[in-house]
């Protein structure tokens, strides 16, 4: 079974530039998450989708971050304009559904450095 796919793996941009990350969840997984993980910290939930609808985006900095999940499969996370503090690993994860018993599977992450 294929895992959660993310791209690009690494990205270096200058502040005020824009960047986009792509995620392809495990086939059949209805729930998709984007997490931000700053070095030395635990993953922080940015946004959660159930199929193509947003369940929770309370911690997404909406003035610069946006995410979409068209057709309820792939998802894109965009940052525009980027700030130095956005340097982090952006982890995409998916699960079968929102129920508590469902395992969350993580992708390898997209490493962003803002200079």
């Amino acid at each position, binding site marked *: 079974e294929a895992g959660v796919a993310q791209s690009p793996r690494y990205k270096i941009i200058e502040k005020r530039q824009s960047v986009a990350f792509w995620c392809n969840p495990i086939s059949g997984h209805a729930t998709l998450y984007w997490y931000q993980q700053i070095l030395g910290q635990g*993953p922080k939930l940015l946004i959660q989708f159930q199929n193509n609808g947003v369940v929770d985006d309370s911690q997404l900095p909406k003035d610069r971050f946006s995410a979409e999940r068209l057709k309820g499969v792939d998802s894109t996370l965009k940052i525009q304009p980027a700030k130095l503090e956005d340097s982090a690993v952006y982890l995409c994860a998916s699960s079968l559904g929102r129920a*508590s018993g469902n395992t969350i599977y*993580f992708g390898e992450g997209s490493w962003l450095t803002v200079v």
Partner: protein
Amino acid sequence: QQPVQSPQAVILREGEDAVINCSSSKALYSVHWYRQKHGEAPVFLMILLKGGEQKGHEKISASFNEKKQQSSLYLTASQLSYSGTYFCGTDTSGTYKYIFGTGTRLKVLA
């Protein structure tokens, strides 16, 4: 509210045991445990769904005390491969929003 894990870091010799605690300020529906090695994605270890539930995974087991709003991960006879950062992920009642804990860095020495 982010769950608090203790200890923040621990160093063990091969064969020693360790306990990692995860405490939440809110009631919990379930607790997940993950291990993350440097530069890699978190890897699922186990889920605990009910208060008082205990689970085992080889030499790694966990308990979930719903009343105390906490979970503990037990590592016995540690191996070099156990090194990494351990995170609990908590689902507070009814939200299905998983919040990860502060993390515990574990280093096993030969």
